């Protein structure tokens, strides 16, 4: 890498995608920053070829996902123990219920605030629900691919995604956000 300015421009072009993928999977700001830094250090090592590649976005996304999942795997024992404690129909386990209700009357309840509300809801989901949900809805992996990636059964993936969706749906409804007939950029 001979031109730091070129790499900096490259980094600024992709940093939201890399950081966004990391924070959605990890749900933690500091950890997502660490992962994003690691991704860009790897990109820097391969920058000569990456800067000319048409698939650089895919490469960055894949590396981010793999590093984030590896990071989560290190805490996997704790993660699985908690997942086993969550029983179907356990309403007290709603992970997003503790977030304060949004001030919908506020002038600041604009598109950015709504996006932030959704991201907060995602971050509040337990990892066992958030990770497969993000892999499915944002990374567009199939149930089978997620099961393989996370080394869990297909039925567990479906169950966890279903619970995650239910929790996220409740979270959206608290802010009167209804996905039907609207996009995240249009007022509800």
């Amino acid at each position, binding site marked *: *890498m*001979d031109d*730091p300015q070129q*790499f*900096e421009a490259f*980094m*600024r072009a992709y*940093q*939201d*995608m*890399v*950081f*966004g*993928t990391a*924070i*959605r999977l990890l749900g933690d*700001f500091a950890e997502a*920053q660490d992962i*994003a*830094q690691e991704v*860009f*250090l790897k990109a*820097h090592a*391969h920058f000569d*070829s*990456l800067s*000319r*590649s*048409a*698939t*650089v976005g*895919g*490469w960055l996304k*894949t590396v981010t996902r793999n590093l984030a999942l590896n990071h989560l795997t290190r805490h996997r024992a704790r993660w699985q123990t908690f997942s086993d404690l969550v029983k179907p129909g356990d309403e007290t386990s709603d992970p997003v219920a503790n977030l304060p209700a949004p001030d919908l009357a506020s002038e600041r309840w604009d598109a950015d605030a709504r*996006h932030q509300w*959704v*991201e907060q809801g995602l971050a509040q989901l337990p990892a066992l629900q958030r990770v497969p949900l993000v892999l499915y*809805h*944002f990374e567009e992996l199939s149930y089978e691919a997620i099961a393989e990636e996370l080394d869990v059964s297909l039925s567990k993936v479906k169950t966890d995604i279903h619970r995650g*969706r*239910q929790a*996220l*749906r409740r979270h959206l*409804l608290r802010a009167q956000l*209804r*996905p*039907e007939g*609207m*996009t*995240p*950029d249009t007022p509800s």
Partner: protein
Amino acid sequence: MSAPFDTPEDPLLHEYLRRLPAPKAPPSLAPRVLREIAARQAVLPWWRKPAADWPLAARAGLMGASAVVALLILSWIERGLGSWSSLSVSAGAVYGPESVLGSGWNITRVMSEAAATILRTIPSTIWWTLGVAMAAGYLGCIGVGGWVYRQWAAPGQEQ
């Protein structure tokens, strides 16, 4: 609201989430990465850095060594052409011109002398031109190899 989310794939929620913009990276991320890169490069020994970043003495040494190697190769080629014809002459003398081996050596000697004579008549500028052409071809191969690597094996192709 209930029905739209009851389908297995939740198409509306899926579409909604897919359209969400990626969360913004903190402004501190890029400077942090650049600082880390600079810190890592600072602790690298000079020979692991790109040649353009080597100390002046090291770069001069590399150039000098390359020139010596090139001169050695050129002189070796030049001496090889002369020794080949003299080797053929001595073999013919040992085995005698009538023996099979001697005849073989004689043929070889005549051919090698003819080749050496022809080669000596070629002006040195042509040799230099050939050398440059070979070097260009070699560098061209490196270029093609690099292009092939980038197309099929570079990290940018990994998914």
